[in-house]
């Protein structure tokens, strides 16, 4: 809602009413039937092509289900899970996932926050500026991966060229061929891709902070840093927390960029759990792939619950 209101404030349109104009009323017979029919297609589609395969996928996690040998699809309990936990490669992808999420999230957050603070004050062409930096959002992670694969190319890549021209490096770096650098390069690309999302969400939140708070803090003689930590951050804490939560889940679940940029290589050094899961799916071992999926959902849910619990008490304190 925040963005809607503030954007309208700028254009001189009437503000959107705070309370949605929903009528809570009874409806019977014909109306009820019509409304039911309105809902049926949406529910049917999502049920058939999302929830049914999902339930089936979860059941596969506990079965021996390999497309290359469907003669025995019996229930095997937790076997798929224990196979994975003993799989060196899987354990490597867990470690990589943590590096990938933390390494992408922290810079995205810091740069996005800074951009949002810079964009808070109105200036000429702010709208155009926002539209321009918003562009990466229209491009799929997979294509971003291809773009950066070309830029980080060891021989003809523009990144090496620029770094050598500015004398930051003296010889070309084989970014994507060397395990030492590959994860770093992939993370750089992902930071580039995700900064805008943070900037937009935080900007929307910033614009809902009442101006009086800033006036009061200015009268009290608070400096910039003090204002940031005592006024701005507490006021938008909830949005910050939710944005971070959604981003962690999203980054974890988005292996497209990795697919486009390195395909998980070199030597699986950039494979994260979800990209490995897709590879295993494509190889046909649905049981093992599903077990990975179940673990991903389980861990993310646990994370979400703990995370939400940990930010709650502070919210109550203010």
């Amino acid at each position, binding site marked *: *809602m*925040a*963005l*809607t209101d503030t954007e309208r404030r700028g254009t001189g349109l009437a503000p959107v009413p705070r309370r*949605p*104009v*929903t009528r809570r*009323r009874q409806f019977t017979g014909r109306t009820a039937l019509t*409304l039911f029919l*309105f*809902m049926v*297609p*949406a*529910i049917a*589609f*999502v049920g*058939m*092509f*999302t929830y*049914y*395969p*999902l339930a089936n*996928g979860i059941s*596969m996690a506990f079965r021996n*289900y390999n*497309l290359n040998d469907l003669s025995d699809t019996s229930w095997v309990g937790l076997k798929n899970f224990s196979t994975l936990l003993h799989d060196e490669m899987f354990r490597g992808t867990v470690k990589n996932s943590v590096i990938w999420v933390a390494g992408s999230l922290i810079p995205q957050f810091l740069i996005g926050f800074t*951009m949002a603070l*810079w964009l*808070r*004050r109105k200036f000429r062409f702010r709208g155009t*500026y926002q539209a321009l*930096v918003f*562009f990466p*959002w*229209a*491009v*799929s992670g*997979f*294509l971003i991966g*291809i773009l950066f694969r*070309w*830029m980080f190319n060891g021989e*003809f890549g523009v990144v090496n060229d620029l770094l050598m021209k500015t004398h930051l490096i003296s010889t070309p770096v084989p970014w994507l061929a060397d395990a030492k650098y590959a994860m770093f390069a992939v993370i750089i690309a992902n930071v*580039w891709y995700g900064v*805008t999302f943070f900037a937009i*969400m935080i900007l*929307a939140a910033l614009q809902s902070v009442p*101006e009086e708070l*800033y006036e009061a803090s200015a009268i009290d003689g608070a400096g910039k840093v003090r204002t940031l930590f005592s006024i701005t951050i507490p006021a938008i804490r909830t*949005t910050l927390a939710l944005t971070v939560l959604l981003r962690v*889940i999203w980054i974890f*679940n988005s292996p*497209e960029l990795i697919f486009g940029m390195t395909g998980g290589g070199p030597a699986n050094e950039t494979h994260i759990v979800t990209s490995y*899961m897709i590879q295993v*799916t*494509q190889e046909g071992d*649905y049981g093992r792939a*599903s077990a990975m999926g179940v673990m991903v*959902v389980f861990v993310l849910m646990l994370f*979400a619950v703990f995370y939400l619990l940990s930010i709650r008490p502070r919210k109550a304190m203010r």
Partner: protein
Amino acid sequence: MIRDYSTGGRIARFAGLGLCLLITIFPLYWILVTSFKEPGTIFAYPLKYWPSDWSLANYQGLFEQSNFAVFLGNSLLVSFVAAAFATVISLLAAYVLARFEFVSKGAVMGAFLVTQMIPGFIALGSLYILMTKLYLVDNRWGLILVYVAVSIPLCTVMLRGFFENVPASLEEAAMVDGCSRLSALFRVLVPVMTPGIAASFIFNFVNCWNELFLSVTLMNSDSNKTVPAALNGFISSYNIDWGSMSAAAVLSIVPTMVLFAFASRYIVEGLTAGAVKE
């Protein structure tokens, strides 16, 4: 107004914003420039930041060496039809979810939102099996059905946000004048909400246009592949032809960027209104 920056602070701020813009635009500029270089110049050293020999050779090569026109056509058909169906279906659902209270409303909204949290490709394997049973593997209409289903949840949430900005008295007046609910919806509400509906359609279209894993899994013959799946094929081949690849990348990015430029404002509005509501 927020406190005034000092002149130095202001210069620093605009320098920072300028740098961010430069970094955002550069990769897109670079792939564009690469796509217009002579195949020889792409691998020439030193790198050319502004080519002297603009050429369409890469585009020509792309269309001659692959079925790229077919891939583009498939992507257009699949994305357009899926986005249109998903928008209409979501519009009906969003109307009900925005205007009425009923017992299972929370459950429906919850079920839609949860689909955004879990990795959709957990279901990739079993979806493939389902589609095999329906004889819809390697079939563009099969992919369309799946894309419709994938697009509905978020589109519904977005449209619901737009509906809540329109007073209910509008369609009630139309119904008093004798319109049925459906015709009130399409004759009165839809015209008022055109920008939001267009943005939702574009959002769906761009998402379908960009989708990779479902397309790779469900489509295997060359005549049915969409653009992302075809690009994935180019990557898997041992040596990437970077000239054709950049031409293909540009062709697949430009349409979505143009559409997005028109609708991004409403898309952000719809997403924040629908999702960040108390």
